[in-house]
């Protein structure tokens, strides 16, 4: 079974600074997807960025970028120019290409709570 580990329960960053959230995963599959989701307090979870394992180029979405190290099974999220609105729980998630019976189950880590200091 796949596992996702986020070793930083909490992180903080000064506004306008850069922060990196760590994620490692374990899988025996060669092709899969990785995601970072943001869950603001009392609001719904939204997708921040996704990475396809077969793509060597790291994904980027505006101020959010990833460092995907397939051999090391590492998938970190870098947030540049941090803003107050970035404060939230961040979840790393894994999804296989095919999990049988049409199920593409997301496996989530335990999350990292990010605080942004004004």
């Amino acid at each position, binding site marked *: 079974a796949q596992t996702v580990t986020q070793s930083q329960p909490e992180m903080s960053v000064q506004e306008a600074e850069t922060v990196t959230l760590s994620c490692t995963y374990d899988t025996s599959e060669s092709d899969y997807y990785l995601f970072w989701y943001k869950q603001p307090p009392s609001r719904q*979870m939204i*997708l921040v960025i*996704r990475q396809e394992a077969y793509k060597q180029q790291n994904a980027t979405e505006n101020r959010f970028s990833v460092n995907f190290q397939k051999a090391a099974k590492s998938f970190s999220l870098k947030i540049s120019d941090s803003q107050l609105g970035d404060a939230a729980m961040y979840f790393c998630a894994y999804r296989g290409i095919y*999990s049988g*019976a*049409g*199920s593409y*189950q997301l496996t*989530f880590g335990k*999350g990292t709570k990010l605080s942004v200091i004004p």
Partner: protein
Amino acid sequence: EAEVAQSPRYKITEKSQAVAFWCDPISGHATLYWYRQILGQGPELLVQFQDESVVDDSQLPKDRFSAERLKGVDSTLKIQPAELGDSAMYLCASSKDSYNEQFFGPGTRLTVL
């Protein structure tokens, strides 16, 4: 922008009572998911529907939990009887199909006393 709707947002119940949660996915989304998120943890899949059919309910505690999506649109998740350990956030998500991006609702926070 279309969103996944869930109700109620908050539910407090006593153990051994029955509770039900409702989810209305984004229009046109064939796949619907129910997740349970215990405080301090990431969401865990309970059940996945493709249209009206259950695709994956391997982690659904079937002795007390049931889920249905009769017309392949909205869905209900029921717990009977509720136990103290069921206190959690119950999230609903939907996607166009099972391999597309999942969109999450705001969740129902259940407290069992």
